[in-house]
């Protein structure tokens, strides 16, 4: 914790003109050698750089690549992979990626394997403006839950060269904070027929044959544990790192429910969860925030229901692959700084996610959108998705309330548990049962 004061003061790069303005304005380019000390050659060469941002479908959006290419003057391409695919590429084909958009728990595999390089905090613009969720492990001055893999446990590395994690704050990070959110259950308010207040409702007999759970083992097990604990059927020492016995008991309960016909389906992909909900096959299920938006766009009522036990939080980070150096590395730093400068934050807010630099994200939203997505206010005009379709009418209030209310209630984090291999074997049994 010794370094935290230093971070707060914010050791900004010493140059007065940012690299980007050097790139975009020709006048600035002409004068850049004098002002910043950068040689002309840098500004010309960086236009030839091609950066590849690789990540999962929910955050690796082609529109972000387009915006970056326009703003930065060099090409940023986006490639989408699934969770195992990303790890696979990072480990087995690292040079095919430049910037890896990893989930926090994926760093647990990627960092020790040396896939990512350390980034000095002095290189990260606005570090002091980034959410304390990542930088200090607190939210609104309160300690965040450490059940599961919370961002603070993985963001800092001991020093530039050591591929590892450290609890204390250092001058180097494994990844630059990316988007994040707090997940809960999605419901069809018109079909559930009663108030939904707890995770236990996922396994309530009231919804027999009309409930679904996600078939991504690491996430599905979290939803299941939240539900069984809330229902008082099982207890856990640490839901972020359950024992083999706890996992066996949880899977046994899941199988019992499956045999009794409780689950209408187990969904694997984003679009499956949207279809299940939109078609009315399912009225309560695990869901991701953009899926709720996608159902709403179809004109079907769907709520991302806050529950009294709290949310399952998750976060992403942008990691610089270890092969990056020279001008390409400069471009990558430029890109990750741009990423947290507001445009992306404003864009991604409309699919329900939050930016690591909330202040700049809010500045990129209209007053109505800011009120709806961040401040918990009723919409004064219809709210639209990133692609422009209406998601919520005027007067609607975002489920879960304001940004503050939501993150104050994160109970567990998505994680890679120590017993993950055991979990996978058990989940296979659940699938086969």
């Amino acid at each position, binding site marked *: 914790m010794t370094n935290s004061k230093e971070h707060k003061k914010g050791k900004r790069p010493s140059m007065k003109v940012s690299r980007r303005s050097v790139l975009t304005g020709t006048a600035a380019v002409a004068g850049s050698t004098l002002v910043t000390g950068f040689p002309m050659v840098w500004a010309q060469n960086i236009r030839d750089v091609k950066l590849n941002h690789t990540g999962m479908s929910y955050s690796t959006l082609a529109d972000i690549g387009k915006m970056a290419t326009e703003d930065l003057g060099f090409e940023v391409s986006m490639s989408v992979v699934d969770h195992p695919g990303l790890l696979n590429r990072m480990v087995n084909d690292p040079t095919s990626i430049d910037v890896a958009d990893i989930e926090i728990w994926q760093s647990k595999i990627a960092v020790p394997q040396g896939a990512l390089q350390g980034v000095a905090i002095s290189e990260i613009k606005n570090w002091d403006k980034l959410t304390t969720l990542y930088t200090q492990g607190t939210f609104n001055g309160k300690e965040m839950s450490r059940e599961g893999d919370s961002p603070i446990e993985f963001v800092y590395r001991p020093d530039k060269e050591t591929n590892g994690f450290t609890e204390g704050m250092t001058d180097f990070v494994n990844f630059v904070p990316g988007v994040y959110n707090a997940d809960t259950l999605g419901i069809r308010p018109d079909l559930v027929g009663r108030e939904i207040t707890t995770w236990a409702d996922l396994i309530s007999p009231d919804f027999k044959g009309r409930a679904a759970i996600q078939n991504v083992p690491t996430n599905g097990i979290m939803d299941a544990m939240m539900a069984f604990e809330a229902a008082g059927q099982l207890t856990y020492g640490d839901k972020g790192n359950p024992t083999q016995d706890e996992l066996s008991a949880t899977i046994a309960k899941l199988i019992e429910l499956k045999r009794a016909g409780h689950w209408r389906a187990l969904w694997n992909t984003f679009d499956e969860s949207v279809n299940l909900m939109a078609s*009315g096959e399912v009225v309560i299920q695990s869901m991701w925030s953009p899926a709720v938006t996608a159902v709403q766009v179809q004109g079907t009522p769907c709520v991302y229901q806050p529950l009294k036990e709290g949310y399952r939080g998750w976060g992403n980070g942008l990691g610089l692959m270890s092969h990056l150096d020279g001008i390409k590395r400069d471009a990558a730093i430029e890109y990750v700084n741009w990423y947290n400068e507001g445009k992306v934050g404003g864009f991604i807010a409309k699919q329900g996610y939050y930016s690591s630099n909330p202040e700049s994200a809010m500045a990129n939203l209209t007053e109505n959108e800011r009120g709806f997505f961040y401040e918990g206010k009723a919409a004064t005009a219809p709210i639209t998705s990133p692609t422009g379709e209406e998601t919520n009418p005027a007067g609607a209030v975002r489920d879960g309330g304001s940004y503050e209310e939501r993150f104050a209630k994160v109970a567990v984090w998505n994680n890679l548990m120590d017993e993950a291999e055991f979990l996978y074997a058990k989940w296979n049994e659940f699938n086969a049962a």
Partner: protein
Amino acid sequence: MSEPRSFTTQLQVSPLVLVLLFFFVIPVTLVVIVSFLRYQMLVGIVPDFTLKNYTDILSNPTTWTLYRSTLKFTLIVLAITLVLGFWLSYFLVFHVRNLTIAIGLFLLCTIPFWTSNIIRMISWRPILGREGLVNEALQATGIAAKPIDWLLYSDFSVVVAYVNLFTLFMMVPIFNSMARIDRALMEAAIDAGATRWGVIWNVVLPLSKTGIALGALFVITLVMGDFAVVSVMSGGLSASVTSGMFNDLQFLNYPRAAANAVILLIVVLLIATAIFRLVDVRKELVR
């Protein structure tokens, strides 16, 4: 055999040999090698020889559950596609007198194949779903009071999709065999006093057996190697042998997935051998 001729033969065979080498022998060899390597959580493949992958799989009851479920689907789908394939071909070959019409009807059967597997599979959802066409019709006509749930996300919907997707693979080889049957044989059978069913049983069926064997082989390999249909149509509630492999891959456990693949390969090869024992496809094809 003279020297030049043997050289020509080798030259003629070489493209096939090369294709088999690059696209079959080398990949399969790699899979077999990986299946004997050790997997370490969070690290991946470790180059140590081990039999653990095989002992793990064979001693795990889940494996047997998955094989049982896959075999169940295989047998049901085989039976249904066989009946459909046989009678559809019979109709086209022996009932439709005009060759042009027969070919036209045959092409009609292939039209669904102009779209992708995924589309043909997903299209069943709005038909079989809780608020789907079938349920709405049943409720509108008063046959069912409330929606029937087992139409979708059940073994039933999996079988429907399989039959929809794979009947053609059964039908085409049977059609091919039937088209070669000499009509004079059937006339002779009728002259000798055979009934209509007698002709089918004693003449058409035995002479279609190559087609049936080939069709069965297609259907069996397609169903046993499937992962997408079963997971989409059962809503993730049923699993197959291949979906077990997929779960292993989620965690980069290539060795166990490879071992699983080798076991599945052996099972399918055994089934294929059995089929070829019953029918000498080679002999029948050059007939």
